Every structure is written in C-alpha cells, then in structure tokens.
C-alpha cells in the first residue's frame, strides 16, 4: 500500500549561500584595499606586482587544466608573445601601457588559429603540441634583430616615466588585468559554459551527445587562458624590464604554474590564488637556492599529484564542504508537511 504524498511546495534553486555572499563581499573589499598598495614603499609595490602576475598565471593555467581538462605545458608561448608584442608596439611609438593592453589582446587573437590546430588533441599530444608551439615561437622571435634577437631586449620606452609613478602604474595595470581575468573566468563559470565544462571533463562524448558544444567550450577557455598569459607576459616585461627569448619562453614558467595550481587546488577557483601566494613565499625563502629550489618545486608537484591531487584548497573544500565562491547550485527544498498514514 502506498502512502499518499502531501502537496509539496516547489524547490528553489539558488546560486548564493550565506558563505559565498560573505566571501565574495570580502573578496571585493580586498581588491579595493589592494588598490592602495602603492602607498607603501617601492620594494613592496614591485613584489606585489610580481605576486599578482603569479596569481594571473596560476588562475589562467587552472582555467585550462582544472576547468577544461587540458594540460598545457606551453603557456609560456603567450607569456613570451605578450612580452615581445609589447616591445614591438613600443618600437612603433605606441604608448607603453597601451601597448601592454594591445599585446594582451593580440595574444588572444593569435591563440584562435592555434586552437584550431591544437584542440583536435587531448592529453599528452595536446600537451607536447603546446610546448612545441612555444619552442617554435621562441626560435622564430630570436631571428628578429629588431626585437633584440637572441640577446634580449628591454622596454626602455618606460624610461620616460619617473621610477616611482612608473611602478605604481605598472602595479595598477597588473591589478586591473588580474581582476579582469578573474572576473572573466568567474562570469564564464557561472554561465552555461560552466556546467557544460564539468560535463566535458567527466565524459566528452557523452556531453557532446546531449548537445554540449565541446570544442567551442574548450576554445573559449583556450583563448581566455592565452590572453591572460599574454597579459602576464606583458606585465612581466614591465616589471623586470629586460627579457630574452630563452627565459621568457622558458618551460620553467609551466613548472611554476603547475606547482601553484597543484598545491593550491586544481579545478577550484580559489586554489590557484592560494598556490600563487604559497609560491611567492617559497620564492622569497628559497629562490636563491638555485637548483635545489627547482628540485623542491618538482618534488612538491610529484607529491601533491600523487598524494594530495586536490591541493590545499581542494582538500579543504572536500573535507569541510566549504564553497566560497557562488559557482554552484543549491537546491532548497521547501518544508514538506508530514504525510497522513492510511491504514493497511
């Protein structure tokens, strides 16, 4: 005998929880506070710029790997491209800061045709394909004498600004870029694309069969990640003033990105930020230890990949169920009146 259902009120689906509302407000407040960093001394400003660049790199690499399931070991292609495009533009009398913005956009544009080449692949083929692209770009750039060829070049056009204000402008532009790309990723993840990405990560073919536009989704992430990496490259140039092909296109950037994202939390929004902060401190502590520093980074990546694959933040989320960013869906079932029991 079945018991009758009572009339239940419809369930509500909400995207915000108290936690995420609080956290997002706090986060916004933090960004506002960060705008005031230039009030501190010059060394701190430069350091903070470096930190923001790390955050940008980590978040963008995670966008591709954690949300898109695409491990790239060639994002340095866009770091280098962003930097060198900035140099080229400045050599053609464009205002340096405007050049950085245009160079960033250029990286996004350049990544579109590359995506058609690379996105036919997954896994290791995709990974090494991205790397070869970076290597090829590095060689190609090193042929160009106007760009300093193999010996490198600097952004001397920035000299027209006095050191103090210059660093402030660089910092603010970096902050703006970081906020812009974090915001873009956030919007993307909250959109329909966000849910389809999870489906794509779980099973591409099944996702495609229910109408998810798999390649378009991946391409969006690919272009976003490339643009963000380009921004990181342009700002790295501004922050360090001298670059050369072997270093700006170096696969070491990928090593840093992998470390930050693995340790912070692959596939979470907050994880890469945490990872960048951790790397920042590691760099300050061990950056001068030469090879042991990299041995440590590599070893940490291995250990985290094997033992704590969800990273610091991911494991925290898993253990506590904490969700700080309003990226998911909560189903709120209204209270149901207890059913009346009919006698058997």
């Amino acid at each position, binding site marked *: 005998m079945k018991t009758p259902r009572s009339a239940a009120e419809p369930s509500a689906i909400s995207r915000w929880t108290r936690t995420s509302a609080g956290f997002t407000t706090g986060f916004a407040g933090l960004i506002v506070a960060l705008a005031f960093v230039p009030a501190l001394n010059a060394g701190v400003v430069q350091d903070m710029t470096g930190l923001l660049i790390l955050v940008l790199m980590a978040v963008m690499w995670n966008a591709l790997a954690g949300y898109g*399931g695409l491990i790239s070991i060639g994002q340095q292609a866009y770091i280098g491209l962003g930097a060198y495009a900035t140099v080229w533009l400045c050599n053609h009398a464009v205002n340096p800061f405007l050049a950085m913005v245009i160079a960033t956009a250029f990286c996004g544009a350049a990544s579109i045709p590359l995506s058609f080449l690379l996105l036919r692949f997954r*896994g*290791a083929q995709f990974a*090494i394909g991205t790397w*070869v692209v970076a290597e090829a770009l590095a060689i190609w750039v090193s042929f160009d004498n106007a760009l300093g060829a193999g010996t490198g070049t600097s952004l001397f056009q920035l000299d027209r600004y006095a050191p103090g204000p210059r660093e402030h402008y660089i910092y603010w532009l970096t902050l703006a870029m970081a906020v812009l790309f974090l915001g873009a990723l956030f919007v993307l993840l909250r959109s329909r694309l966000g849910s389809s990405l999870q489906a794509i990560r779980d099973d591409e073919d099944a996702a495609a069969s229910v109408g998810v536009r798999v390649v378009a989704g991946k391409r969006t992430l690919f272009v976003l990640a490339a643009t963000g990496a380009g921004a990181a490259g342009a700002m790295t140039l501004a922050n360090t003033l001298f670059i050369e092909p072997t270093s700006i296109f170096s696969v070491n950037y990928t090593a840093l990105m992998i470390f930050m994202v693995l340790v912070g939390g692959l596939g979470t929004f907050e994880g890469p930020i945490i990872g960048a902060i951790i790397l920042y401190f590691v760099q300050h502590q061990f950056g001068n230890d030469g090879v042991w520093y*990299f041995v440590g980074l*590599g*070893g940490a*990546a291995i250990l985290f*990949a094997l033992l704590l694959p969800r990273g610091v933040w991911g494991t925290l989320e898993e253990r506590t169920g904490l969700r700080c960013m309003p990226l998911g869906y909560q189903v709120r079932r209204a209270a149901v009146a207890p059913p009346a029991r009919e006698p058997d």
Partner: protein
Amino acid sequence: MTWVNDVVQGIMLGGFYALLACGLALMFGLMRIINLAHGDLAVLGAYLVYLLLEHWNTSPFLGFVAVLPVMLLIGYVLQRVLLERSLRSGLLVPLLTTFGLSIVIQNLLDQGFSPDDRSLGASAGNIATASWQITSQLSIPAIGALALGVAIVIFGGLQLFLSKTGPGRQMRATAQDPDTAELVGINSRAVYARATAIAVAIAAVGGVFLAIRSSFTPYSGPTYLIFAFEAVVIGGLGSSLWATLAGGIVLGVAQTIGGQINPEYPILAGHIVFLAVLASPRGGLLNLRRATA
C-alpha cells in the same frame, strides 16, 4: 648534389632520434602515457656512462653495457613507485608527475655534474669523428651509421619480442585490454614495469649515442623529449614501431635540409614539419590519426 648528402646525413640523424623515440612509443602504446621525463632519463644514462668513464678508461659502448642494468632497474622502479600510482588516477596525473620528475632530474644532474657541456665523443675515440668518403660530396659518418644500425637492430628485436615471445604477447594483450589481461592470468603491473624498464634502457642508448655525436648538459633532456615525440607523431602516434623509426628519419632529414637552407633553421624546420603533420588530416605518415590521449 650536396642535396643527396643532406638526405643521407638526415637519415643518419634519424637513427639517433629513432632510438630516443622507441621507448616513448612503447610506453605510449602500452599505457597511453607520455613520460615527460623520458628525455631526461636519456641524459641520465649519458651522465652515468660519463661518470663510469671517469674511473674506468674504456669506450662509452662498453661503459654503457655496464650501465644498462642500472637503467633497466631505474625504469622498473620508476614504474612501480611513481607511474603505477599515477596511472590509476586518470590522465592528468601522469603528465604532472612526470613533468615534476623531469624538473627534479635536470636540477639534480646540474647539482651533481655542474651545468657545463660534456661529451662522450673524446672517450669514443675515432668512431665519433670517422666517416667514409663515398664521393667528393657524399660522406657517411661512422657514428651515424652505427646509431642507425643499432636502431634497426633494437627496433627489429623489439618487434620480434612482441610478436613471438610469451612476455611480448602479454604486453600486446595488456596494451589492448588490461582488465581482461588480468583475468587470463597476466600480471599487468609486472608487464608495465618491464616495458618501462625497456623503454628507459633504450632511451639511454639514444642518450649515449647523442652524447658521443655532440655535447650534452643537465638540461638537454627536454630537447631530446621533443625530438622523440616529434618522431613518434610524424610516424603516427599509436601505430607500429617501424613507423616510429620512419618518423625519426623524416625528422632527421627535415632538420638537415632545414639546416642547409639556413644554419639557424634546423630545429625550427623540425618543429614545422611536426606541426604540419599534426595539422594534416591523416595525422601521421603511416597511420590514421587517433584523437585520443
């Protein structure tokens, strides 16, 4: 007719690349993973031979024979300790752990041997520099011919191993269906470990040959990996071993001819050929592309 000489040199060079590529192809065919530390393991082999030769004055080839069991052991342990666990966690983890391993090996080698260029050419003696002058414009370098010959022998031996022997059969079965392989009594973990051991040992052969031909540093690994991977992809990822040998040769020829066009171009030429093959619908010389990881 230097053109012909270039092609011949390129074919010789291809032998080196084929040796590097062989192990990579074996591991990919069996376990569907690309060991991003593959090139660094090849360099490690070269350094071990170098180290041995500092105490024992002999040719690198004999030195390698002594180092061979160590490389086999390294490969076996690598699989059991690191890669086995990575395999179970999906496709992302093996890439990340082998990348981390690559960084660790490079920097440990730097620490142990300093970043200076080294070469095994001097210890190899005549064979590193000798060549047979066929015509005034065509010469065949002895070391290149030897590398190519060794590559053919190794590829042939591996092919025979896979098609005619019990363990080879087990490897083929496990590659196609590891789950069912276990159900018919095959210890898949042991099969994987054997394959990785073989792959690493063959990579070391390539590393030693390249060390004789030119110089190497602790950071040469990634370059070797790229060449190995390009060779595998040009031949057709997932196709037969012989296709990988062919891919290596095509890469060697592309680089040599590119170098003729402009001495700065050889490696770039290789990259371009690789990307062109990647972009083509067939995705490989001898095989249809498989767009799976």
